[in-house]
């Protein structure tokens, strides 16, 4: 296991993914902001939520990167397209199962059946997170594909 490679490229991949998603927000392609969504689990303050969420998102990035590098190690090689393929699956998982789970576990998120009420006021993502804009799935898939491609391209599998 190449621990330093995991730490470095997991970090770089997460930063690039976050930048791409934030850029998509700025260009009005999506209103989805994963750090904000994560941060509002812990606080209602918009500013604090962004900071807490970003830290959590970074940790999440490393955790997910661990799964990527485990796959690379088991295959004995890492390439950009292998990483990209895992990223695509990862993105699809986030959009489908992940987004369906969020309203159930997020204490401040409303759902089609619950709220809005005094606590649950955050707009739920809906199917494929389409509530956050019709181009959200494309942005999410592109960001995760790039995340995986970076890991696959730069992570070096060491012979055990």
């Amino acid at each position: 296991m190449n621990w330093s490679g995991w730490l470095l490229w997991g970090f770089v991949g997460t930063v690039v993914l976050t930048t791409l998603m934030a850029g998509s927000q700025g260009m009005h392609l999506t209103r989805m902001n994963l750090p904000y969504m994560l941060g509002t689990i812990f606080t209602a303050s918009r500013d604090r939520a962004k900071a807490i969420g970003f830290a959590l998102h970074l940790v999440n990035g490393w955790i997910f990167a661990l799964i990527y590098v485990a796959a690379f190690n088991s295959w004995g090689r890492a390439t950009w397209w292998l990483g990209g393929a895992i990223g695509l699956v990862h993105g699809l998982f986030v959009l489908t199962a992940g987004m369906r789970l969020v309203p159930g576990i997020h204490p401040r998120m409303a759902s089609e059946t619950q709220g809005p009420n005094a606590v649950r006021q955050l707009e739920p993502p809906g199917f494929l997170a389409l509530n956050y804009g019709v181009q959200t799935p494309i942005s999410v898939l592109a960001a995760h594909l790039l995340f995986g491609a970076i890991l696959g391209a730069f992570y070096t599998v060491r012979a055990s």
Partner: protein
Amino acid sequence: MKCIDDYAIIGDCRSAALVSRDGSIDWLCWPRFDSPSIFGTLLDETAGHWKIAPTGPFRSERRYVQDTNVLQTRFYTPTGSLLMTDLMPVASASEEHHILLPEHEILRVVECESGNVELEMLFDPRPGYGLASFRAVDAGRLGVRVQTPSGLLVLRTDLPLTTANHGPIRGHGTLRAGEARHFSLTLAEQWQAVLPPLGKWSRESVARSVAWWKDWASHLTYEGPARDSVARSALALKLLIYAPSGAVIAAPSTSLPERIGGDLNWDYRFCWLRDGSLTVRALFGLGYAEEAQGFVSWLLQATRLTQPELRILYDVHGNKPNPERIFNHLAGYAGSRPVRIGNAAVDQLQLDVYGEVIHAATELVRREGDLDRETRGMLRAFGEFVCQNWQRPDEGIWEPRSGKAHNTHSRVLCWAALDRLLELHRKGHLPRVPALKFAENRELIRRDVETRAWNSALRSYVARLDGDRLDASLLLLPWYGFEKASSERMRQTYARIRDHLGAGGGLLYRYRREDFPGEGAFGICGFWGAEYLALGGGTIEDAQETFERLCAFANDVGLFAEEIDPATGHALGNFPQAFTHVGLINAALSLAGRLEGEEPVPRQVPAHGAEPDAPEVQP
């Protein structure tokens, strides 16, 4: 047809909406003052609105909740009465830390006070000045969702609705005494939408906003004549300050005509440097130092990309607004065409803005005591620019599109720019300036104005050098310290202006020309007249009477447009207008000062290192 003064403003210091007397929001640009409109019926009846009102005939009265920008409209019908509260919710920083709040929201609460009243709601958004396509989707408990180019609009209400994909959304119900209905419209621009609940939560939101505005208004230090008018002007001005940058926009509307049916229709949703020193003095004078400092910082920082040259207007973040466009698909207010989006005056040369910015910075020193190194560098560069350019013709304060001229007001402001810089230098705030060069140019400008802007045949200062036309901006000469208000020349100038530009009731036209088809009396010019009297040009009684007559031209909720029709007293031009309210505040401050026997316009800068506002030590 609704009059311009049939509107009142609500806002959150980022954007504003105009609400008519009959319960309709006819103008809303979201998320920023200069964003494309979502409701634009003000300019074309097909450009969208949001109306909540009794179904049958009614009479309405309205007011702001005391010391707030929370509007209350009371509808009286044959069967009962309704009270509608309109606001854009605001909250304190500590409340924002523990409450999840939408990025942008308009909240409307309707309560039945007596009897039974049938209520109807019509929600008809037309994003992008009525040009953008959109689709409304009923998402059940999550509200009606309308995707627009500005973001996601979500309408939530406890009134039963009927929705259509492209048509208006309607709601209908009967309210009995004690019952209430709540309407929340939010815009999620870049983030996941926050959907505030209704009912108790809405009422808490109203209470939070009322408390926030009351707290803000409690810092008002003014205790002089017409305090209510001054307080309302302060509240209106606060709504026009874009909180994230500190910029003050001229007005939240575009193309409201200066002449009904005419073509004097301009986009005022930007920030004019011209308004700088007058606005700063008004804010400091009322006790709102934070807003004044914020505006001066904006003046100095936003202009950084073009310094030492200054544009005459910027958007709220200091960028050049998009080029002016004519929107032929909009019929215009009362058929007043064209409707302009953007303002081509941005490319004009107005030399007065240098005096305004330097004067504003001087006011900051007078109140706060010092300048940082960077600002000193900027001010020196402005001074150099003035020395090199004051002889040039410019478009001048009124931005005519007929070409440049040698405008007296601009030249006096160039004099004021160098005079203020030299004072800052003398008091040690501005070392290493070419003082001799500044002083020589200041004297040259004074000689130029005294000889060429004084028309001895007319016995008055005139609008242009070597000219023979009058202009109300000449009343500002004492304000900038160029002439004493009590000087013979100023008294004669005032008498000519009153005779030639007077419109009755203390109102003044800004100018009059044979080749000009006419417009209303210019709001701030009347207040300049009242202030001139208060500064020593007339008696206290004259000044107070003129000031109070002018205050009476405000609409029923205390708001002024840019101009006033002297024949009807109705508002003309963009609404509400910061410049007019600034004029009212400054006239009130000068009047109050005169009543208390103070120096007319205190502008002595304290010596470097001395306490601000400390009396100057004579050498």
